[in-house]
């Protein structure tokens, strides 16, 4: 075990206790609206101890941790039952983007707040008519008196209700289309021109939101890159998530799986040979998910980009959705019953996992990406209906 991992493990043992006990294993996808206040306080705890941004370069207050160390950190966090990280969008997506493309002023202004666990970010990409076709962005930004004025709407914005800022991809060049003419802006949420409305999902929880912009503003200094760079920055941001957190996510999956096994033992469905086959296949899938992530990470550590990375999203989301179905079948007759009038953890898993194969790029879009980028097959026609050669 690396020094850093060891140190963090001890820190978790000594600090993730007391009032934070109730957060154990909570706030995972499907449950991200649990204990909002306490979770933000927990982030400040992590920040004060220097555990946010460990992978950032030391000049920005990070520890310059290696990929192995970051993986170890995430695994320790998950194995101690740490709650879903309210600050992960700022820490693992926006901060590396600011470090790579931002101005010195932006680095000085925004990195400390993220590092301290005091300022939270959400991602303003999707719109009602820009889902799978993400570049069809209609939200407008225009530069007036040295500030950007934003009008439009974002949707499926995770954790907007707990966030202080949103990074917004908006259309700045009049008459531009698709990936052209976009800007990437850093916008404060607490202002008169912004309204946030939660979206209640079929799981009864509400971690996604709509964010409405009606003359909201940010300074001209809060643009990353220039006019027309928005798409490039937006895509680069998504590339910073190199999969180090997926191993932590898999430990959450492993907990869910274990809970289903325990239930099957307790209620006798473990005697059903078909359930046993499905449990075994689910277990094999979980292991293979881990092996694949490690393979991708090992390659990334050596500087290779490998094609199997493209399958990560569709594989875990499909596996997780099946786990939800398996959970219900293991529950059997009890699956339909609400105890205390509320969904239990496995019922929530079943319902929320229907969104896994949709958000962050649907399974259908993932198959397009795999076919086109990993297999070099012809690209989908765009707009005009002509087929482009791959």
């Amino acid at each position, binding site marked *: 075990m690396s020094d850093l991992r060891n140190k963090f493990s001890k820190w978790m043992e000594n600090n993730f206790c007391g009032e934070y006990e109730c957060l154990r294993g909570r706030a995972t996808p499907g449950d991200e609206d649990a204990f909002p206040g306490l979770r933000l306080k927990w982030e400040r705890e992590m920040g004060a101890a220097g555990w946010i941004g460990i992978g950032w370069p030391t000049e920005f207050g990070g520890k310059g941790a290696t990929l192995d160390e970051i993986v170890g950190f995430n695994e320790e966090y998950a194995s101690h039952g740490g709650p879903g990280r309210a600050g992960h969008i700022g820490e693992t997506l926006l901060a590396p983007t600011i470090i790579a493309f931002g101005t010195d002023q932006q680095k000085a202004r925004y990195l400390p707040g993220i590092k301290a666990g005091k300022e939270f970010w959400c991602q303003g990409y999707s719109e009602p008519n820009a889902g799978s076709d993400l570049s069809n962005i209609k939200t407008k930004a225009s530069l007036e008196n040295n500030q950007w004025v934003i009008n439009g709407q974002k949707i499926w914005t995770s954790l907007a209700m707990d966030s202080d800022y949103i990074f917004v991809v908006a259309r700045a060049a009049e008459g531009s289309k698709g990936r052209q003419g976009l800007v990437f802006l850093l916008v404060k949420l607490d202002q008169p021109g912004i309204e946030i409305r939660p979206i209640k999902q079929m799981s009864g929880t509400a971690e996604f939101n709509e964010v409405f912009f009606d003359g909201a503003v940010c300074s001209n200094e809060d643009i990353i890159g220039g006019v027309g760079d928005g798409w490039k920055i937006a895509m680069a941001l998504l590339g910073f998530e190199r999969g180090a957190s997926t191993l932590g996510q898999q430990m959450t999956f492993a907990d869910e799986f274990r809970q289903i096994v325990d239930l099957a033992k307790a209620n006798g469905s473990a005697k059903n040979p078909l359930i*046993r086959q499905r449990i075994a296949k689910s277990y094999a899938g979980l292991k293979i998910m881990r092996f694949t992530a490690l*393979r991708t990470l090992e390659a990334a550590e050596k500087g290779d980009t490998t094609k199997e990375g493209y399958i990560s999203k569709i594989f875990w989301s499909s596996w997780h959705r099946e786990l939800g179905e398996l959970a219900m079948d293991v529950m059997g007759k009890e699956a339909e019953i609400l105890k205390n009038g509320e969904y239990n953890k496995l019922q929530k898993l079943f319902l929320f996992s229907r969104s896994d194969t949709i958000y962050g790029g649907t399974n259908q879009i993932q198959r397009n990406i795999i076919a086109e980028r990993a297999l070099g097959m*012809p690209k989908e026609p765009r707009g005009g209906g002509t087929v482009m050669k791959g």
Partner: protein
Amino acid sequence: MAYPFSSDHEMIREVLSDFLQNWYENGKGPERIYQSGKSFDENIWSRFAEDLGMAGVAISEDFGGGGLDDLGRVVVMEELGASLCAIPFLTTGGVVVDIISKIAKNQFKEEYLQKIAKGKIKGIFCPGHLSEEKKCINSANADTADFILISRLKNKIIEVVCLKVGTPGLEINSKKTIDPTRSFSDVDWSQVSDRDFLPIGTAEINFFTDIISQSQISLAAECVGGAQKCLDMTLEYTSQRVQFGRPIASFQAIKHRCADMFILIETARSAVYAAAVATKDKKTESSLIAKAYATEAFFKVAGDAIQLHGGIGFTWEYPLHLFFKRSRANRSMFGMPSEDYKLLADNIFGDKP
């Protein structure tokens, strides 16, 4: 050079890939075997063993082998799978080499391993300790073997003995099989006189757990190689076949099926590589998973490849049926996937219903 391979591994992959694809010749290689009525090609085996030194890829360098680890065999098996090359490496270069290396006395070791490495002799292993009967049903490559290793239970210790083919009373009856690229035979040694068995060593029962793991990994690697070849053929075909005025590879129905094939192949690949590099405590489980998953993946991918090739896919002339048949045959080796998953479930639940 991609994780987890070293430059040594990559080198043998390159050499083997050229050599075997040359032999494969768009399916003509396996077809020639089929027409010849023999179950394998002596010539390709001796070149594979002698010229390329691959039969002994896992034999220690002290005995004239390549001295490579499980990953070395993974590379060889992937390439053999991609060419459906009908040579008995899985048995001779795999389980037989492992048993001799680990339990035989030096003299036997020296003689047999050196001969195997040079391609002079081929062997199979019959796990006789698993049954009261002195026979082994559907043993792969038995009809091409020069000697047979047999395990038998003696006071809770397993004794391995060697029997030369041609020993009076030993019967090897080869069978006609759906998959013409790998032979299966029944081996019966019940009529062999006791004094004809040459004892080569003894082992604890759990010794065979490791032996089985290695075979599972090799079989799974062969499946990955075969499945990859099926996908490659499909990508090539669909990019050239034009219907409705466009290559059919441009249709989402085709793209999505190919993407699913890729997902299966890459996850199977992860499972195989992970099992090959697994530490001792994780070897048994990861090999079982690799074998169960990869054999199912190959079968699915080979079937998909036929579907995406349209009419030509189900002809005898086109080689896809050979991959499909091999993929089905592999499901029957070392236990069916459903039996593997049953074992896995028993471990997960810690019971045995």
